[in-house]
């Protein structure tokens, strides 16, 4: 089933599902989108409409705008802190908390840390932000790692010169530990319990220092982490063990912007890239992702749909089919019908997927195909 596309007249840098109340097994209905490269950028909230509209399961409705708010600078990252609060990171170096009014009628600024990231005489863009309520961590082009608490006006801690290069992404490993990735291809673990400003651990690929752009942690196993970088390679790491990743997969032909494990079904992984594709990775056999990946894997992309996609090499598909007859397979499916401009962001929750592109379109899948929880 093809996703619903909606053109929103602004280039989209981030899309995020609003969290659903736990235990209710609801499908998400509301998502936030942040724009970039506009004269005036915005954070906007969209709704997918009623869930009980059609009995035949056909959701034709386009997302509709509920509310939005102006944003100073590009929206470089967005994360929901909880059901009503949203954190945004800006290219001006600011980190802001936005409050969503009940019934999503309005979006207002609750608090902003201006110039959290900065150079001595210039602004430095904040590149990513991650939340684990009530704590937030942000990273930026200035190489700082900053810890905040949502209800405190002053920042809790700043790790100055955490990195001599730009830190592109950050994720929580444990409550007090975060993992950052930078533009010289290193993963660094930081423990906030430690007083010193140096990382607890540094990991990197032994080859070229390819910049890493995204990182995500396995929802159940805290030591398994996936990264993606400039060369489009998907790497799976075990942070306890050594300096080499377990798996290197040629996922995309250009920068990978986001990688996400499915939060409740981690046998599914999603990646999106500058090359205009969004891939859904899944294991086809009984074994789960972590066992599979620990065996070390090397695979190329395969498309599930019968129709070959524009630009796809026929020989790739055939060599995959010819070479591999094993029971354990890692398969990838293109989620977008045709090659678009860069897919900058994706988010997945329950059975729903949302992503945004530089072609100013948001795509929503309300029922992920071949997906069961």
């Amino acid at each position, binding site marked *: 089933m093809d996703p619903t596309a909606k053109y929103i007249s602004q280039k989209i840098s981030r899309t995020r599902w609003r969290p659903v109340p736990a235990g209710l097994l609801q499908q998400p209905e509301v998502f936030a989108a942040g724009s970039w490269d506009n004269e005036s950028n915005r954070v906007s909230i969209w709704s997918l409409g009623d869930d009980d509209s059609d009995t035949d399961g056909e959701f034709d409705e386009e997302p509709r705008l509920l509310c939005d708010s102006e944003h100073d600078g590009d929206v470089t990252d967005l994360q929901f802190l909880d059901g009503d609060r949203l954190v945004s990171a800006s290219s001006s170096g600011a980190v802001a908390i936005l409050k969503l009014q009940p019934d999503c009628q309005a979006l207002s600024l609750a608090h902003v840390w201006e110039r959290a990231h900065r150079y001595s005489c210039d602004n*430095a863009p904040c590149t990513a932000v991650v939340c684990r309520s009530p704590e937030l961590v942000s990273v930026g082009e200035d190489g700082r790692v900053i810890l905040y608490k949502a209800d405190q006006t002053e920042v809790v801690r700043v790790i100055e010169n955490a*990195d001599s290069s730009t830190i592109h992404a950050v994720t929580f490993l444990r409550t007090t530990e975060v993992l950052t990735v930078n533009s010289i291809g*290193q993963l660094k673990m930081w423990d906030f319990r430690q007083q010193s400003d140096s*990382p607890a651990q540094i990991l990197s690929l032994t080859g*070229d220092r390819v910049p890493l752009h995204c990182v995500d942690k396995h929802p159940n196993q805290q030591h398994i982490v996936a990264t993606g970088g400039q060369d489009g390679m998907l790497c799976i790491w075990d942070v306890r063990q050594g300096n080499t990743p377990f798996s290197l997969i040629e996922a995309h032909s250009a920068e990978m912007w986001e990688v996400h494990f499915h939060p409740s079904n981690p046998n599914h992984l999603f990646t999106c890239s500058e090359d205009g594709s969004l891939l859904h990775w899944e294991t086809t056999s009984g074994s789960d992702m972590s066992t599979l990946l620990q065996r070390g894997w090397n695979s190329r992309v395969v498309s599930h749909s019968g129709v070959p996609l*524009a630009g796809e090499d026929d020989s790739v598909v055939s060599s995959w089919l010819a070479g591999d007859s094993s029971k354990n397979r890692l398969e990838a499916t293109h989620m977008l019908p045709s090659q678009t*401009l*860069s897919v900058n962001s994706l988010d997945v929750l329950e059975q729903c997927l949302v992503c945004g592109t530089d072609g100013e379109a948001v795509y929503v899948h309300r029922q992920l195909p071949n997906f069961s929880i």
Partner: protein
Amino acid sequence: EPLMRNILMTEARLYEYIYIYQTKHLGFEWGPGDLLVYETNYKLQGPRSASSPSVHVVRRDEDICSPILRKLFNESHLIFVGLQKIKEDVPSKNKKSQFVSISKNYRSVIRACMEELQQNVSILLAIELIWNLCEVLFIDAAPAGSLLLHLLDWVRLHKSDVDTRAREVLQSDSPAQHQSYWDVVISLVLQGRTDEARQVLSKQASLRAESSSVFKRMDVLLQNMPIFNPAGTQTLTEFDVKWRHWHEECDRCLQDNTFASNRHLETICKILVGDEDTLLEQRELLSTWYHFLVTRLLFTHPTIKPPDLHYYAQSSMNMFLGPRASPEPLDIILLSAFEFDLHQVIKDCSIALNNWWFVAHLTDLLDHCKLLQSHNLQCVSHIRSSYLSYMHVCVSLWQLAVDYFDHCPEFGRVYLELQIERVPLDTERKAIKVLRICEDRQMSEQVRSICKIMAKRALRNNRLGSALSWSIRAKDAAFATLISERFLQDYSNKGFFTDLDLLDNLGPAMLLSDRLTFLGKYREFHRLYGEKRFSEAARLLLSLMTAKIAPRSLWMTLLTDALPLLEQKEVKTANSLSCFSSVFQDEDIESTKTELLRLALARNLAMAIVKEGTIET
């Protein structure tokens, strides 16, 4: 775009006049889609005073960055890219259906845009009308038989008020009494929608029993009207025969005065016969000459062949508009289309419509259909560049523009190279995207210059790791050397290395430049020394000096570092002697240091001799 220039010229003159009145003078300069205006120092009268240093940008009223237009640009961009990917070797029959489908996609984008705009849609309506006609005549290139059917669809699509009125009438309490009742019936007949006309007519028939036979007769006539079925087995000739038969039947009804009792039915019968005067009387219901044309063809010549179209078109326009009326630009364009003069259509569209989006995309599609002759290609190129300069006004659309540049014959590459360097690089992420575009197209000069800009900026902000990362991407050895020098300078000033996380993890990037290699190795030397692995450290230092990759400025520092090592028992000096002596010969070194070194060397040599002597005996 002479029209636009005139408007802006007037605006500028207006400002000029106002300002002259206030004793200031304006200068201006044309940009790609806007106008730069500035105050000059020139004064017509009165004392001079400082002019404001600002430059004003004057733009057209039409906001190209309006959300709806942006949707149009983005959606059509996707279609455009898909079109370019259609492979050349696909058989032409399959290609035609693909092209028709692409044409329909473009048109649905236009219609979606119209729906959102709601006002100021007249240009879009005209565009869709013209595009649809071009699709029918040129892209789909329907042959006789189907041609008329397609033209009927075309007319029906652009005259949708008939449906609303019909619905109104049918939903009223007594449709037959509704004031628009007969208008609706006639409109439906004029559009060849005989079944629907019959349905509306049946409302009348049920009321008046005594005249029901007349209505039944009309019902039969309408029901029997032959419609050509392109997918059916009937040939065009067979259809023609059948149609003439039916036509004669209608004519007989007129001669027999069958419908004399009801003037409306009489009118309808005259229409069915194709009586031109009656058709012209329906001027208000037809509303356009091209509707008149299609209706006329429907009832006089349904098997019209494409080459014969132009004769009927010209005469229809003349008949409908009358001798005194002058045709609008839209009418001229449509007429050129009916005359199959594609070149004229494009030319007139470019001038009259002032909408580069439409002309650029339509000509591109026609080009793919191989409908444009070679002398039109320059035209295509010019049109595309105009579209691009039009899009350029909305700065955010630079990524869309790239795909258009790629398919611009002749100058696309050159324009892209110029354009891409002007994209402001506000954030690293944006720079990465620009770089990807350049790398994909082997624009190595632009890659180098963008990386250099980013590296310099990083260096200015003291982000040495970032600067190095940019140099690596551009494979810029010279800049890597610069960064290394900066590191070494910092070391000399501070006495310790900064950014150890970078230096300790250079990896293969170290090989990018000699200076960088030296830096990495030198740091390694310090590390080895700190870990008390002196012989390894000494060997490393030695190799650094013999390899001659150490910068001259640091030789003294290196030798000073070597001093304590020479005291260590494990260090062998055979090679070091020759190396150090060559250094002394070339270099002008401080004398105290030289003395210290000579002393240390001598002692080391003495130790070695003693040691070796001891072993031997």
